[in-house]
């Protein structure tokens, strides 16, 4: 009852403009026409540049994010880190995940200038937030046996982490890193909209120029690359686990 009421009230505020939609119908024909005739050739040089930059951004950001997520993740594990470090790392990870990538990208483009570097920073921060949190959760659930044994044998802190903690969590984290690689490529297609490089920059330019044939070609390429990535990563994951 309440839900229906909300639906009516909310729908009331939407302000559907019939004339505008009718006007859009012609554009829709144009648009879907372009959609059905994807044009890979006219802008091929730009599209290739964008895709290559997206892949490069994705790889660097995922690798850097993975490396940084290890100290943050260990620091955010209740069973390893002392109180203040735990709180600081948890807080940092929460901040990294709080804002949507687009908002972070706007900030970083203002800081580092247009282009791939701002994109790498954006994706890197998001990756640390994602992997760090999941790593911390995995570490908190480990079997304490090996860790106790190492402590009892007088192992140093580094040794305990190296042989008591990481072997238990790494397979899972590597699998998640591959998953994040996939996410980062997806995201690299949109942070370009605000100037952070990659295929998104090419896409928004094609949109702005009403070259829907190129838009369609870019989207087809993104989707098929994601398909390929999914096949590849599921295969890699099976071998890792």
């Amino acid at each position: 009852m309440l839900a229906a009421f909300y639906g009516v009230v909310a729908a009331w505020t939407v302000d559907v403009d019939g004339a505008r939609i009718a006007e859009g119908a012609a554009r829709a024909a144009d648009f879907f026409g372009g959609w059905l005739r994807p044009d890979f050739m006219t802008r091929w040089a730009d599209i290739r540049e964008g895709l290559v930059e997206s892949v490069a951004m994705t790889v660097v950001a995922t690798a850097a994010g993975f490396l940084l997520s290890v100290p943050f993740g260990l620091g955010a594990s209740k069973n390893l880190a002392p109180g203040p470090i735990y709180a600081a790392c948890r807080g940092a990870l929460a901040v990294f995940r709080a804002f949507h990538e687009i908002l972070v990208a706007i900030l970083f483009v203002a800081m580092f200038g247009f282009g791939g570097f701002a994109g790498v920073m954006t994706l890197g921060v998001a990756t640390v937030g994602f992997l760090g949190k999941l790593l911390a959760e995995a570490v908190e659930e480990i079997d304490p046996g090996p860790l106790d044994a190492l402590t009892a044998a007088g192992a140093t802190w580094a040794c305990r982490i190296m042989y008591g903690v990481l072997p238990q969590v790494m397979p899972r984290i590597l699998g998640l890193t591959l998953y994040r690689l996939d996410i980062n490529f997806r995201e690299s297609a949109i942070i370009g909209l605000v100037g952070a490089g990659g295929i998104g920059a090419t896409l928004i330019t094609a949109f702005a120029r009403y070259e829907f044939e190129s838009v369609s070609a870019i989207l087809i390429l993104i989707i098929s690359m994601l398909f390929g990535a999914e096949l590849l990563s599921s295969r890699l994951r099976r071998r890792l686990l």
Partner: protein
Amino acid sequence: MVDHARAAEREWARHTPAQRRGRAVGMLLAALVLAWAWRRVAATTNWAFVLDAGVQLQDMGLRMFPPDSPYLVQLTRPVIDTLHIATLGTVLGVLMAIPLAFLAAGTTTPSRRVLRPAALLVLVTSRSVNSIIWALILVVLIGPGLLAGIMAIALRSVGFVGKLVYEAIEEAPELPVTALHTTGAGRAHALAFGLIPHVQPVMAGVSVYRWEINIREATILGIVGAGGLGMALQSSIDALAWSRVSVILGVILATVVVAEWVSARVRSRLA
């Protein structure tokens, strides 16, 4: 006699030599790819801009503070719009996702050859295109505003909800359905009383979870003209009104945190 001295000298290794070689080659390949990617990014980077990032950040910080707090009043409407976009978009998305999920699940699909692959393709396409790209497309089609935002959220949610629900359908036990069939129940009855009770909690949980994600996404869709807080953000950035930008970012953060809290409460009730 076993030669204990010899055995003690032998070094223990976790991997066989062949495995070690494979791992070394893998590592080397990964390092090469990484080196190439880094060079590619570094080549197109203007390092002068990167080096003065600290100055830029400080400058931006100074412009953002103090926040233009009276502007908060003007944000009431965008916040409400954002909530509407997320909620109506989720409802619409779930309504489209449920029939698709039944078509896509191997156990319930009426045709394995045609309808199942078609439904799977729709779900994958929906998931592969980010909601902001859906919004970009829809703004061209139906003009800027709330409707484009709602449709964008709905189209993106279909794939997410549909995928998780059809997996739940496939994992549901078959026994209750078979049992109902043996008592003479028709197909519809068997599904309604044998399958739906198993799938319903998943549907509810996934929908609430997607709603939470959608709130987050709805705050930024306005950047491409699809209504809500993002629209206010974009116009403030375009006007270089950084003291307003900080207010909007604060409101976005608050909205997301509240949505996360609501979603966590609802989901713990459902579970």
